[in-house]
């Protein structure tokens, strides 16, 4: 512990968002610094590397206007922390945790480091309680459970925004569940998207904490915003006992920011220029989802990833898929025929679903309905290729039935527009559909 702040005017070089400070006494890794520009602006930065008295600082703001000689760097002796209070609920912040909803800043109850600490695997409780999103294709076939991390893999131009908005307003626990809140972090937002989401949040009034990082803000803030969001989520979950659903959109913007910063630090690039540590970095966010044995509260995560070039093997969706417990994959084909949400059931998967469904959690017949729907739909989809070759007339009666089922399944079960379906309605819709086609559901 230092007794006073240390101030330096020994900046020796500047490049992009990086600056070197000389002759610094006892700096710490990750220490927060305040950078005071000659024109009086103040910015926050972080210590990245130390070599003797030379310290490399990364600045989280617009560095134009900084100079060598007049710029002051103040070392605070503390790592980056998030201010926390129950009053954050219902508020909208920017990526630096400053309110942008017009109301004044709250008085923090405590401060926690933004990077958090890993949950001891021996202290984790197995996720098994159902969260209802209101979308049949998720609730019925790719069920989300408390403590899970389940990404949405979207493509450019698909209505992931509308889907997120639907989940924001519709997600809830089934009866008897605890207190529920959504933490929403939007990264690299255009103004168009921003105004859309603000409208949605206004409609919700409360039950959310929002962090909005705009596209024109410095990229460092894009890396910070999800960490603030998760620190807030962990606080609400494990200090206040709430069940928190964290929605982060869009992780592709986050990863691009990570690449940009990695390159400016002159680090060795990995695949497609993304840094080699991107897996660990993404894991340091996603793994913060979970439940704690014997404790109340949970952090569930629903990040949105836009697959560049619609390519699921691109490093961003690929590494995400390796960390998360399943994925919801959106399809351009379904969107073309006006199906919303355009979720492709076949590559989608929720790995933690099995323990979260059935009697006492959703409904006794959930597993059987979901397995049958998947099986018949997969069979129908398989036959579409054959249909394209031999034509419908050359197919057997049973094959035609399966083809028709697959079409009806997409139109009636997957497609639900803006309506909300409870889990019961979802399962009944599926069951009725199979009965109508006289399919065996036992």
């Amino acid at each position: 512990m230092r007794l006073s702040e240390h101030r330096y005017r020994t900046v020796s070089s500047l490049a992009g968002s990086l600056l070197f400070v000389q002759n610094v006494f006892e700096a710490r890794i990750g220490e927060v610094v305040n950078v005071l520009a000659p024109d009086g602006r103040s910015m926050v930065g972080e210590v990245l590397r130390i070599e003797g008295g030379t310290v490399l600082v990364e600045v989280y703001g617009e560095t134009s206007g900084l100079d060598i000689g007049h710029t002051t760097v103040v070392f605070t002796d503390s790592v980056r922390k998030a201010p926390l209070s129950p009053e954050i609920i219902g508020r909208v912040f920017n990526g630096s945790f400053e309110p942008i909803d017009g109301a004044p800043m709250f008085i923090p109850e405590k401060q926690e480091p933004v990077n958090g600490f890993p949950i001891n695997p021996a202290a984790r409780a197995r996720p098994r309680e159902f969260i209802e999103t209101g979308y049949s294709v998720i609730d019925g076939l790719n069920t989300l459970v408390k403590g899970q991390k389940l990404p949405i893999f979207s493509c450019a131009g698909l209505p992931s925004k509308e889907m997120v908005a639907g989940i924001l307003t519709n997600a809830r626990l089934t009866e008897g569940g605890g207190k529920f809140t959504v933490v929403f972090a939007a990264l690299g937002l255009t103004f168009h998207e921003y105004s859309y989401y603000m409208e949605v949040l206004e409609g919700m009034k409360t039950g959310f904490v929002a962090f909005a990082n705009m596209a024109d803000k410095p990229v460092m803030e894009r890396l910070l915003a999800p960490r603030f969001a998760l620190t807030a989520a962990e606080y609400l979950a494990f200090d206040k006992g709430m069940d928190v659903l964290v929605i982060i959109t869009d992780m592709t913007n986050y990863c691009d920011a990570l690449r940009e910063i990695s390159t400016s630090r002159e680090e060795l690039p990995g695949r497609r220029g993304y840094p080699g540590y991107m897996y660990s970095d993404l894991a340091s966010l996603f793994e913060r989802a979970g439940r704690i044995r014997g404790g109340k509260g949970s952090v569930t995560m629903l990040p949105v990833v836009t697959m560049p070039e619609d390519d699921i093997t691109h490093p961003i969706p690929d590494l995400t898929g390796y960390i998360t417990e399943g994925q919801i994959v959106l399809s351009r084909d379904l969107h073309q025929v006006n199906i919303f949400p355009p979720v492709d059931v076949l590559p989608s998967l929720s790995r933690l679903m099995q323990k979260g469904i059935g009697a006492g959690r959703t409904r006794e017949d959930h597993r059987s309905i979901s397995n049958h729907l998947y099986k018949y739909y997969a069979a129908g989809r398989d036959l579409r290729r054959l249909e394209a070759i031999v034509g419908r007339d050359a197919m057997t009666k049973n094959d035609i039935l399966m083809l028709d089922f697959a079409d009806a399944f997409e139109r009636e079960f997957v497609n639900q527009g803006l309506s909300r379906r409870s889990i019961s309605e979802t399962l009944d819709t599926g069951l009725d559909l199979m009965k109508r086609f006289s399919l065996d559901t036992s």
Partner: protein
Amino acid sequence: MTGKIRGISGPTVHVDLKGLKLFERVYVGRDMLTGEVVRLQEDGAVVQVYESTSGLGVGEPVKGAGMPLTVRLGPGIISGMFDGLQRPLERLRDVMGPFIISGREIYAIDYTAKWLFSPSKKIGDDIAPGEIIGFVQERQFKHFITARNTTSKKLSWIADGEITLGDSFARFEDGEEIMGCFEWPVRIPRPYRRKLPSSGALVTGQRSIDFLFPFARGGTAILPGGFGTGKTVLEQAIAKFADVDIVVYVGCGERGNEMAEMIEEFQTLKDPWSGKQLMERTILVVNTSNMPVAAREASIYTAVTMAEYYRDMGYHVLFLADSISRWAEALREISASLEEMPAEEGYPTYLASRLAGFLERAGVVETMSGAIGSLTMILSVSPPGGDFTEPVAQACLRTGGVFLMLDTSLAHRRHFPAINWFQSYSLYSKKTTLYYNDKVSPEWEKMQLRCREILQKEESLREIAEIIGIEGLQDADRLLMKVAGMVRTDFLSQNSFTEDAFSPPEKTFSIIKGILDFYDSELGKLKEKPSHVE
């Protein structure tokens, strides 16, 4: 011996301490973070820190431990759960709560626990190096206590009955003591008399493995597959049902929830071979993806050293790591922070040799005490984008004995385990087939050949059927397609979440025999009545 931190960059720390040895353990900073010396320089050393360096400052003290990174070996490891540095996670939770805060050393072994020691030697006996002097009962295992003297010596005293690990178990005439537990450097393989060729099959209870791509005791196997192909589920199924004494499972840079699930299952499920709770034969080493990267690199060494320790008592040990790609990535991160020259995709040039050196720790050995023990290794690989040409998968291919390629398209069709039957192979096939011929049925090998043939034929027929439709095929071919379908869905597919999760070789054999018998009888009918099938 103390010095100071001079510079920090990610997990690497420059210190001004002189007189350290390469790979010596170092305590870094006021929080005493564990580190390892990776490079010595004229004016100090470079230390790789195994915990988060966030908040660490220059000028903080550094202390050498005088020994390399070690694990503690002794009774009480089985059914334990450790992090990559062998800190016991359950006790860590009791001490610091649900989150892991860095910089706290807790011994893996409880020195105060009482054990019942049954000596097998008496005063005056000559003890050769590595000889067994007695055992304590650790769950269902006899935990043998071995002497670690370098030359043959006479015992002057030996304990009998209740004892703690802090006590001396025996004493030689020259005063040297034998303790119940000791430390061993993780990067040095444990000694043995000689290595033996791998013998006998390792029954996994997975039909597609036992029948088509059998494992051998003391062998190595690699399981590459993209995400969602069921690597973890398959590894855990093998960990549950494999016919071995002890299982060491490393969750290396993977999901925390998965580990929670596994722990819960292992505490409730029974081992089909001994009838005891699975956790009672399991050691878990867990370094989830958000735990420090450098400790992830060390975790597989920590785990394999514990595995070798039990092998040395004459047990058959199975080592599983999920996933070795995460280990390689940790190696890459460390290499980058040391500013080493990178090779393909940024991995260090020594990736392949490190991996080969690690896989060589598997094998059947004659132990120092003359028993036969084995260590079998199964490693999963997570190739980026499911692309098998990447460096980690390629490095594994050169050393692995069994290659099980997990196929994304099979996984999408919900065919699990998604082992591709055309691309996978087992180099142990010859020897293990003899074993199954002998133990299960002399027809095993014949059935295996026919099964492969059917699957191969189906593949070529499928292409034709896609064009002309299945109705256009000849009757015999349609029958073959039908039988191949049965082989795939009734034999090769196996649901890990039902009763069928474990299939003993006898059951495996009877299913395939049933299918092939059906094929033969239908073929016979076809010959009699050439125009009709069904």
